[in-house]
């Protein structure tokens, strides 16, 4: 065998590559949703969230540890965010091949932990392992299914070393879900409204029944009319919406909500005729999805109010105020709350 300087360099580089991550891995072992055992730092102080759902969860659990946003908050979001984190830079997102985040940029922000919160699939398991191997930063993925939300909050709290805070938020989540279950127990299937989720300025983009974008509608008993061939987003025609004749329309598009009453092709839809088109608030995080994270807990309460106005007698403004205080650490004043809910 011959040893050239070049191959010696390669060997040295290989040793350096394998040694580097190992050095960063001292800490407590944590088995994440992908089944990988990850060495998590005892008290992570600089945490990067890989996608918007994780960023929201991280913000609610341990805002002081955030090092940046996946997408910078919009100006309209700022009054509803802690000022010290609102100004953090936008770093981009890790999503697999189409990353908008350069790993070198991420590393120069010196994170000691990367967290992700969302779908657990082969792609994301592999992504977590690859980014961790490549960057040497431990990468934890927590299951983002809505059904296991309280447990996921606790898991993320454990990883971030804020178990008491996580318990507090998880207890709120459990109470909210129990409240919804108690409400639904009194309402027979036939009395639950048929619901169409309108997206886009024409309202013709929708989230199918069973999709992550519409799942909280079903959780509050809404019967999503869009039972489609897909479990994601789809386009439908106005004629199809007419044929479905939904009793309630939930929209996330301000423009659509403002114009639907005057759009000829929406006339005669029961929700439009009866004035039951509701614009979901979206600051600082959406009530329905955008992102699909803990922000949806207040969406559950909001939907319960919109779906069953005769049954739900609690005060929505107070509920929103409490939620924003507990989760987002801000106390919006009366005018801000009215603007948020009035839209």
């Amino acid at each position, binding site marked *: 065998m011959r040893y050239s300087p070049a191959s010696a360099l390669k060997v040295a580089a290989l040793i350096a590559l394998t040694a580097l991550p190992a050095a960063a891995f001292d800490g407590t072992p944590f088995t994440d949703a992908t089944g990988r055992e990850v060495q998590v730092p005892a008290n992570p102080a600089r945490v990067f969230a890989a996608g918007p759902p994780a960023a929201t969860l991280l913000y609610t659990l341990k805002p002081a540890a955030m090092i940046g946003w996946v997408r910078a908050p919009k100006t309209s979001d700022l009054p509803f965010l802690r000022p010290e984190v609102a100004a953090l830079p936008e770093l981009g997102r890790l999503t697999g091949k189409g990353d908008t985040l350069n790993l070198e940029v991420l590393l120069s922000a010196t994170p000691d932990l990367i967290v992700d919160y969302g779908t657990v699939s082969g792609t994301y398991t592999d992504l977590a392992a690859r980014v961790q191997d490549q960057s040497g930063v431990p990468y934890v993925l927590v299951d983002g299914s809505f059904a296991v939300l309280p447990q996921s909050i606790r898991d993320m709290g454990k990883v971030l070393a804020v178990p008491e805070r996580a318990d507090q938020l998880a207890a709120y989540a459990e109470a909210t879900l129990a409240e919804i279950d108690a409400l639904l127990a009194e309402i027979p299937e036939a009395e639950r409204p048929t619901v169409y989720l309108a997206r886009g300025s024409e309202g013709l983009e929708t989230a199918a029944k069973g999709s992550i974008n519409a799942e909280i509608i079903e959780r509050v008993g809404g019967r999503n009319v869009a039972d489609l061939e897909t479990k994601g987003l789809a*386009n439908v025609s*106005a004629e199809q919406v007419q044929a479905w004749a939904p009793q309630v329309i939930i929209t996330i598009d301000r423009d659509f909500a403002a114009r639907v009453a005057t759009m000829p092709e929406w006339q005669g839809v029961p929700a439009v005729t009866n004035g039951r088109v509701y614009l979901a608030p979206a600051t600082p995080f959406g009530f329905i999805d955008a992102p699909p994270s803990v922000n949806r807990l207040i969406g559950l309460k909001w939907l319960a109010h919109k779906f069953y106005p005769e049954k739900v007698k609690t005060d929505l403004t107070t509920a929103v105020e409490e939620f924003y205080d507990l989760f987002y650490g801000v106390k919006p004043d009366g005018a801000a709350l009215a603007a948020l809910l009035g839209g």
Partner: protein
Amino acid sequence: MADRALIPLLLVGLILALLLAAATGAFPIPPGRIVAVLAGRDGDAQAAAVLWNIRLPRVLAAALVGAALSGAGAAYQTVFRNPLVSPDILGVSAGAGFGAVLGILLGLPVLAIQLMGFGTGLATVGLVLLLSLSLRGGGQVLVMVLCGIAIGALAGAGISLVKLLADPESQLPAITFWLMGSLAGIKRPDVAAALPAIVTGLVPLILLRWRICLLALGDDEARSLGVEAGRLRLLVIACATLVTAAAVSMAGVIGWVGLMVPHMARLATGPRFDRLLPATLLAGAAFMVLVDTAARSIATMEVPLGILTAVLGAPVFLWLLARGARTWSE
């Protein structure tokens, strides 16, 4: 004889396609009652609203888009003397796509998005023509096509950039749906906005169809027959671009129709543009009306037109290739 029967035959086909499309839809209206509803003799106001505001504008839009893309395809193929040319050869689709997705990114109203797509589609081809005329060998067809490919690639890069900048939760799905082409959101004002441009573009093509025939012979032959090839070619390109930009900005990017329908028509008429154009317009309108009817009835969700035209178009195109180039050259 067969030649003379062709146009009436296609016309009957188009009318049948329109009737089928008008009678098909998600909203339950028995076909037998449609005439009564349209005449206002049926008391069902909701059915009338669905027909007038949703279904009929869409059927009309499908016919317009089909005729526009096919007619433009036939015109482009003739002036470039190349059967592989489709209406987006000079970058009109990519340009219109860029303008429209930029409009979505900026959160503009739908009609403004349509206008922006229309404007950038025209501007893209304008830029291509200016470039090709100012470069060495100015006005040559090859230079023109190469400029179109280059500018089209730039517009494509612009579309990718807009996708990257778009909000992945709200804007990106809208952009993706738009780029796949659909008539799902068509309303009467959209049709009213596109109609004048499509008519303005198609009328000169129809009036000048005998002269345009001569372009297929080559510039020198055309000149010897008294036709100034360069100027006529520019006029045809302008007209075909106008109708394509109007169609694309209304319906999104729909591939294959502009390439395939002229070939299908050519099988019946032969390559002469004066015979080809009417057959292409009628066949294109009928084809698009049928494809759009399929797009809104084979599933509860809308199937993007770009997918359906490719699924139907690719096999037909391969079959044409297998038959060889006889239909073009004879």
